[in-house]
């Protein structure tokens, strides 16, 4: 059986609209996005952003909450009123749980508190641009990895891996997003459902456990660390 790499399609040169009024911050984000192969555009205000969305139809928008004139959340509301349904990543220095809930309720697809490391921003963008595999599937295959979601069994090739429930959930989450960088914060939020960030390097420890079971000595490494950000499940590294 040839291993099939079920990597969802993602537009390599997706255009991303950055709505940010601080010129330094905007310049850094734009440079970072360019380095990742995206085509970034910039709008310094909500009104500019609407004009740009209308003219250029970007694939995704990164919107700062505090903008001069039309603020970020009102901008999202206006976009929805006018029928633009592109994924929106809200970026804000207002990062308490309540603010976050407000941002997501207003129509943001994800919420990232400032300050953030660029890797985290890229991981979130990637997650928004890709769709995870169909949630109704009962089995997932990535390279030599195969898990059965009904029997709760996991195999690498013909070798069965004995995973604890949390490890299984973690692997399932990663196999739904192969080749995609997953930040520690994303894993904590999605796999463990935790909003708070523990002081200890908990995610690393859990991932270390899973790695020991997935990648035995002598086998090709499938789980890779991404420095300062998190992890990726991929054979190509």
């Amino acid at each position: 059986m040839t291993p099939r790499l079920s990597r969802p399609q993602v537009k390599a040169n997706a255009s991303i609209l950055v709505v940010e009024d601080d010129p330094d911050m905007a310049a850094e984000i734009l440079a970072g996005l360019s380095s990742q192969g995206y085509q970034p555009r910039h709008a310094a205000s909500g009104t500019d952003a609407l004009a740009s969305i209308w003219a250029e139809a970007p694939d995704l928008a990164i919107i700062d909450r505090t903008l001069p004139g039309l603020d970020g959340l009102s901008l999202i509301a206006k976009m929805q009123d006018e029928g633009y349904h592109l994924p929106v990543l809200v970026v804000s220095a207002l990062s308490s749980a309540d603010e976050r809930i407000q941002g997501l309720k207003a129509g943001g697809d994800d919420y990232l508190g400032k300050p953030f490391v660029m890797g985290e921003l890229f991981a979130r963008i990637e997650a928004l641009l890709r769709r995870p595999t169909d949630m109704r599937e009962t089995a997932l295959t990535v390279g030599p990895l195969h898990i059965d979601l009904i029997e709760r069994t996991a195999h690498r090739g013909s070798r069965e891996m004995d995973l604890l429930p949390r490890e299984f959930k973690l692997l399932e989450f990663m196999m739904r997003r192969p080749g995609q960088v997953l930040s520690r914060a994303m894993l904590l939020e999605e796999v463990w459902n935790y909003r708070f960030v523990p002081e200890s390097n908990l995610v690393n420890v859990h991932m270390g456990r899973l790695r020991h079971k997935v990648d035995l000595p002598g086998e090709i490494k499938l789980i890779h660390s991404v420095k300062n950000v998190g992890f990726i499940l991929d054979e190509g590294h």
Partner: protein
Amino acid sequence: MKGTRLLRAAPFRLALGFALTLAGSTAAIFGYVYVETARLEIEAKRTYLELEVREALVMPEAELLDRVHTRLARDLRHNSVEALFDQRGALVAGNLANLPPGLPVDGLVHRLVTVPLIEEEPSRKEIILVADRRPDGKVLAIGHDLDDVGALQKVVGKGLIRGMGPALLLALLFGIFFAARSVARIKALDRTIGRVMAGDLHERLPVSGAGDDIDSLTTRINQMLDEIVNLVEEIRSVGDNIAHDLRTPLSVMQARLERALTERDPEALRGIVAKSLTDLGRTHATITSLLRIAEIESSRRFRCVGETDLGEIAREVHELYEPLAADKQIDFTVGGDSPALARADRDMMIEALANLVDNAIKYTPSGGRVRIEIEQDGNGPLLRVADSGFGIPATERSKVTQRYYRSDKSPNARGSGLGLSLVAAIAKLHGFRLRIADVRQGASVELACYRDLSSSRAA
């Protein structure tokens, strides 16, 4: 200015409104009495006149003439009309020049305004008249004016003015008195509010002691100001803490980056940048923790919390931290009564317990023990995290729940030092009690998960 202010004061307007209502209703009562009395009076006169004329029709003429003369002679105020006309309409006797054109000869009472009276100019006064024909063809007309009814009107009007004037005046005076009092009180409140708005948060509104509604309102506003002062001070202390804890690493970073300007070796430069990034990450983590504590302290979200099973939370946190403990060869266990229900926010309890366990694992050397226990004391459930670590000296126990305290005995453990402060904030929000138990070896931190009324914060 003062005048308009007084006139616009609520008590004055109330008194004015009351006075006007009183005047209106009294006038309506008087009016009703007048209209009814006048109607009855006129009705009585009509009946009288109709009877009179019927009686006079059949009288012998001599007697009738005598009667007309006697009546008119006695009528000093000229209220009556008596007249007898012959078959051709010429006056035989009486005080009417001719039969008024508007008066039908039908034995019924009619109301006329202009009547051709002898001796006088055509009268303008209202008169009710009745005319009827005698068997011999002569016509008799008798009538009476309505001056009495007008007099009644005057009496009623006078009574109305004499009674109402003083009542209205009194109501207005009361209104002005109370309005002036309340304007003075509100002015005093207004001055104080002005000072509070100008920044003097320690000013309090004057309470008169009358115990009225304004007093209870000002008391509530004063309580609100107390709470605002508390919150402002909390924010100020958060600011102080941020400044205190961030200045040091920022100064270090600044010095390091200044050194980087003169550094030639690319490897050394990269090292400096990497170190600075690590420090920056740590300062960000500190800010996040501080803001989270401030968020919990100012939170009111827990109000509508349901029951949370502490046993389930303990198992979940155990599962989360088990690999970490295992890496450090720490024997990590969980035990005790379950289910143990507490009125608490589930996510916050997980956050609190995770912080306690995180600390315990951090401060316990390899080969040690950490245990989560759930117990019931007399009042409710209790969560305890006990470890075999360095322990917390009795002198430092009250300090560890304050922000920024990190025991000197754990130089290897790195953290923002905010974990226990966060747990303390969550405990305070729920009205729970956080206690560091006195044990011989290691540390034991207890969170009593029921409302401790002696220390709970009003919410």
